[in-house]
């Protein structure tokens, strides 16, 4: 039994990247403490166990944050539960028919004024840079009048999250999923159900291999939607266009 474990350790020794989540390829060499930890993990079961506990703990922490707020729903109703969930995750929202945003000021103390509006659906939700995940979306399921959803820079939003967004297919008009590190082209295919979408922001998604092609396909898939896709390097074609006129200038200069 120990032999396969040793084999596993030797196999992991062959990997040169010691980063925990190598989602983006970086040419910076790994820091010393990471390399030391990797060295110890390959030789001692205790270190391996402690490190796996640490990553499990972190994951369970995120799961707990995204738990279903059933108690709040039973006491105050599903809309207040959704609002409370958003405020606890440090997001912000706006009720239907109201003009003020709750939770938009990160430095202010927790404001309980949102309890005054009972049984009002949410219209705009901004969960940028929060830890919302697939489990947490269950808290927002009843919101049938949701028009704007902003998920910029959320590390836990992935393709499965996008596939669940079909519950808002009648009402959602604006979606911002830029800078989400886990989204790939397979998840963008899941946005086909959002026929009411008018504005979509898919900027700076590192895991899309051909951003130009994907944007064209998205525009075909959602004809009424305006797609924003900045932050991509379309350079190879631009380089050719830049050098071609330079060559002709040189030619005319010499000739």
């Amino acid at each position, binding site marked *: *039994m120990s032999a*396969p*474990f040793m*084999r*596993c350790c030797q196999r*992991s020794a062959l*990997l040169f*990247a*010691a980063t*925990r*989540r*190598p*989602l983006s390829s970086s040419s910076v060499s790994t820091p010393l403490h990471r390399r030391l930890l*990797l060295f110890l*993990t390959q030789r001692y079961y205790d270190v*391996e166990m402690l*490190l*796996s506990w640490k*990553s499990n703990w972190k*994951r369970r922490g995120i799961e707990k944050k995204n738990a279903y707020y059933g108690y709040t729903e039973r006491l105050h109703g599903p809309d207040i539960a959704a609002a409370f969930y958003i405020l606890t995750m440090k997001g912000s929202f706006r009720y239907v028919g109201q003009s003020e945003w709750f939770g938009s000021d990160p430095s202010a103390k927790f404001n309980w004024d949102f309890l005054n509006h009972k049984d009002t659906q949410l219209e705009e939700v901004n969960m940028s840079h929060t830890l919302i995940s*697939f489990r947490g979306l269950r808290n927002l399921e009843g919101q049938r009048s949701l028009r704007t959803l902003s998920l910029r820079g959320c590390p836990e939003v992935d*393709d*499965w999250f*996008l*596939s*669940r967004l*079909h519950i808002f297919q009648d009402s959602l008009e604006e979606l911002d999923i830029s800078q989400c590190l886990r989204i*790939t*082209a*397979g*998840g*963008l*295919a*899941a946005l*086909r*159900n959002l026929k009411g979408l008018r504005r979509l922001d898919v900027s700076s998604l590192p895991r899309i*291999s*051909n951003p130009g*092609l*994907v944007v064209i*396909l*998205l525009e*075909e*898939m959602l004809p009424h939607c305006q797609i924003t896709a900045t932050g991509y390097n379309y350079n190879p074609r631009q380089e050719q266009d830049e050098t071609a006129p330079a060559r002709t200038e040189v030619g005319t200069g010499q000739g």
Partner: protein
Amino acid sequence: MSTWRRLQVKVCTAHGLLTSRRVTERHTWLSGRLPPCQSLSTGTPLRNDFFKDLEAQLAAMRRKAADALPGSSWSPFEVNPNLPPERADIVIVGGGVMGWSIAYWLKQKEFSRGAVRIVVVEKDPTYSKASTVLSAGGIRQQFSLPENIHMSLASADFMRNINEHLGVLNEDPVDLQFNHSGYLFLANEEVAHIMEENYSTQRYAGAKVTLLSPTQLKEKFPWVNTDGVALASYGLENEGSFDPWTLLNAFRRKAISMGVIQCCGEVTGLKYMSSIVTTADDERLELRRIKSVRVHMPNSMEYQPVECAIVVNAAGAFSGKLAEMVGMGSGPKDSIAEIPLPVEPRKRFVYVVHCPDGPGLDTPFLVDYSGVYFRREGLGGNYIAGASPEEADEPDTGNLEVDHQFFEEKVWPSLAHRVPAFEKLKVTSAWAGYYDYNTLDQNGIIGIHPLIPNMYFATGFSGHGLQHSPAVGRAVAELILDGNFQTLDLSPFGFRRILDQEPMLERNIV
């Protein structure tokens, strides 16, 4: 005498030649360095002889000491390292996605580390004929049996959290390349009522499916020709396609990191002990208990009998052969032992076509009522298409050669009829793979045969084994370690229906 003299002369001349060479060498070296006294080599040594030998001897001594100390794997007998261990608790025959899924779940569920010793035996490490890697890789919840729907939902749940389950510390996270495209089933008037019944079963079981009328279908997918379509069923969530090779390797990597032993070899025989048992109706039955599995090494006469407590038959298309080895199907007439395992390989073709004007990013996995299916592959206008042949003209299963006539005659006309853009397409590549076809009812067989108490079956899935593999792996692990199903009750898939010859038909087979 003269010969002796001649020999002496020869020796003298030879000696003279040698000495002259040494003199010439000395001359050439006088300009450079001091030559050693008795060396005949033309190169200059770096160090003195004595130190060079000493270093080699010290290195040899270090190696001998390392071998002698405990912790080294030196043994005076020559042992083939590829042989499986002599004793194991569970031997899983078949290293496809089903076998490795069972191995992973067994290790996941064991109550103390190293409690169960598992060996997975796979005869072809290149997986050239394995059904897993040759499959189209789709997952759907649109079945007619609630158990199948539950299994698909559980497997989709597993794949959503795949890094939680199959993530190994300090290794890359698993990327299944899941394309959430959804399945679209089309029905004509004759089968529309079956589709409606299936829809209510699916919704009741928790699948997110919606029904579309022809006008709604045309509105949603303008490239579809709705001629002859009475009803369409469209999956919204948890449906799509993924990379089966990644899933197989993820299961394998995690299982090996947890201590499962992988063995490359073929099972050529089983040793079992028989005992005759009399039932309450005074019928005499022969119970066979497997004692050891004979694993033959590839391209060699070597074999290793592995003594085991439990054998799991996850051999896919070749499970019928394994069942014959233990005597299923060769019993006395009108007895349970006479019924063979109804799993046989059936060849299916998959064609890769390129069509630049085809449907775009939102292409679902479309399955027509004529049996033809296609799905998008990648972003470059490539599609994967295929069809299930009629019962009468099943292709020969001797080899995995592709029949392009089949595409021209059966697949392309229906495809072009359904999607007019496919009239102009080009077949870029094709392959063939085996279905582990259950001839009784095309549903999996999960459980134990009543006369062979320690052989567990997980085979016969007829084309939807890959999408059910996480759920089936967990179910078989629960059967083995807990004695009964815990999370999903898959007892309808047991052996009872095979022995009673009562098929449990799935009406939505692709």
